[in-house]
């Protein structure tokens, strides 16, 4: 691993004080993707942890690197991607692990739910066959697979699983398809589920039900979750801890409620005030100047400085590092909000 001179070390992050070793510890993860003008650093020096049985939310807008981070954890990065840093999974480093070892983890210990259940499910196979795939691969006898699949579908709230497991994806509604995806993820008895925008494609009435399901699964099965989303309302609902990313770099880490109620980083703050409220009429938020930073053309210094009202000369040249700003809170900002 070569450390670029512009990148300076961030402290290793240890969940909350007094916690046992976390399930997953991302340490200084960087990802380069091949681009037309040379490699593009889409994730830059990112560190965070996911504790067993807890939900960590990864917040960011398009181009923030949040989906790439999740994709790196499950090991499905596109060909040509260069990964550096460490991803400690229960004492083993996912970055240096062989392809075979990763395949054994994928679908078993580490499962993923994708944004669009429509395209994540195979239209030519029954739901039951897809939910039970990992069980069949593990050599479970067919009759037992069928029983387990029916039980799984029932647990995620698919009505009448006895008949519906034999149906095809087109016979399921959007919400039911996402439930089937959750069942597929649960089939391998995962320790962590990576959920990439699991409710974005769904109607608001269905969203609330899927989020309730994800919460219930965390409570009943003790599964940890890394929830990737741009939707702060979703985060406020389910995330114990949140990690905010901008242009491939970390902005802020802390408890979900604390960060969303009292953001320390100006970018988090801008995101929070941009969410239109339903409860009471709010004015349209003062828009951020400019456009989101392009990872291929990231500004010097703090990547957010061209859009930041508080930016000083220092922000234009010096990359802010993640540092503790309050109990359980860290931010990468030279001039964070007082908490």
């Amino acid at each position, binding site marked *: 691993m070569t450390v670029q001179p512009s990148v300076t070390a961030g402290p290793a992050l240890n969940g909350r004080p007094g916690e046992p070793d976390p399930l997953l510890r991302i340490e200084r993860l960087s990802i380069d993707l091949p681009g037309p003008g040379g490699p593009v650093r889409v994730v830059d020096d990112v560190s965070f942890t996911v504790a067993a049985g807890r939900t960590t939310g990864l917040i960011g807008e398009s181009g923030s690197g949040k989906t790439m981070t999740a994709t790196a954890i499950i090991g499905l990065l596109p060909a040509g991607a260069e990964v550096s840093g460490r991803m400690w999974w229960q004492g083993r480093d996912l970055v240096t692990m062989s392809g075979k070892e990763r395949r054994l983890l994928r679908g078993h210990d580490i499962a993923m739910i994708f944004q669009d259940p429509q395209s994540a499910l195979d239209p030519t196979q029954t739901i039951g066959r897809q939910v039970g795939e990992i069980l069949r691969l593990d050599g479970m006898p067919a009759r037992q697979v069928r029983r387990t699949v029916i039980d799984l579908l029932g647990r995620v709230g698919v009505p009448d699983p006895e008949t519906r497991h034999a149906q095809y994806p087109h016979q399921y509604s959007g919400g039911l398809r996402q439930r089937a995806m959750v069942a597929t993820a649960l089939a391998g008895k995962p320790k962590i589920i990576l959920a990439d925008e699991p409710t974005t494609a769904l109607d*608001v009435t269905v969203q609330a039900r899927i989020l309730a399901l994800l919460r219930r699964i965390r409570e009943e099965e003790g599964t940890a979750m890394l929830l990737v989303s741009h939707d702060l309302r979703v985060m406020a609902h389910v995330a114990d801890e949140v990690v905010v990313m901008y242009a491939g770099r970390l902005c802020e880490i802390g408890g979900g409620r604390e960060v969303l109620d009292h953001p320390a980083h100006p970018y988090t703050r801008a*995101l929070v005030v941009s*969410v*239109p409220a339903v409860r009471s*009429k709010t004015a349209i938020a003062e828009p951020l100047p400019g*456009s989101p930073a392009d990872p291929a053309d990231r500004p010097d210094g703090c990547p957010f400085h061209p859009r930041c009202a508080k930016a000083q000369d220092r922000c234009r040249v010096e990359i802010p590092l993640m540092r503790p700003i309050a109990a359980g809170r860290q931010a990468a900002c030279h001039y964070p909000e007082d908490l």
Partner: protein
Amino acid sequence: MSAPALIEARDLVVNFHSRWERRRGTKPNAVDGVSFSVHADETLAVVGESGSGKTTVARCVVGLQAAQSGTVLFDGAPVGRVARRAPATRRAIQMVFQDPTASLNPRMTVRSIIAETWRTHPSVAPTDRSWDDEIADLLADVGLDAGLAARRAPSLSGGQCQRVSIARALALQPRLLVCDEAVSALDVSVQSQILRLLVGLRAKRRLAILFITHDLGVVRQIADRVAVMRQGRLVETATADDLFDRPIDPYTRKLLDAALDLEGA
């Protein structure tokens, strides 16, 4: 409101049935007896879940979709499909689509995308000044730099593309702007830019806006009146304040409760 409506829909019915389905008559209509009106300088939001028929309604108004029955009246006169509309009517009703990158031709420059509208409708093409000056003004109206005129869509961000789509619509001096989920695909920080732009333009040009969306928070910010659709029918039409504070229909309440629940305490 006593002034006559700019656009009015009366008893629109649309279905996509096959001949066999029509004969059996068991499949519901996509749009089933929908009536509403929008006045100048007013924003009507149409909300509903996927499959409720809100996009089909928008397409009927623009004339991209023929209705099986019912009429769309513009300035009091019935208008049909877009191909049968008088050029002046076609010009006066413009649409901004959901996916900003897919609604611009990737091979055309921003300048030619806007200039194309004037070649189609010479009546509103600038005559007393150069087209380039007018394009620069339009881009400034939507908050874009004049230098963007020489670029093509693939080199623009999503928010920039959406602003070009709005500039293209404005080039024809429309009186009604139909926005079908025009901000849904954008990041929240960009979304507020586009919303501010729409609200500012409505006041400046006395535009009527038909705003199709599923995002109730956005509706609360910009709509004067709201129409709620469910399974092809309008279940409730009310002013924005009434709808959010005193919803009448049980389905509207369910929709609001779900959104409030998501918003949390």
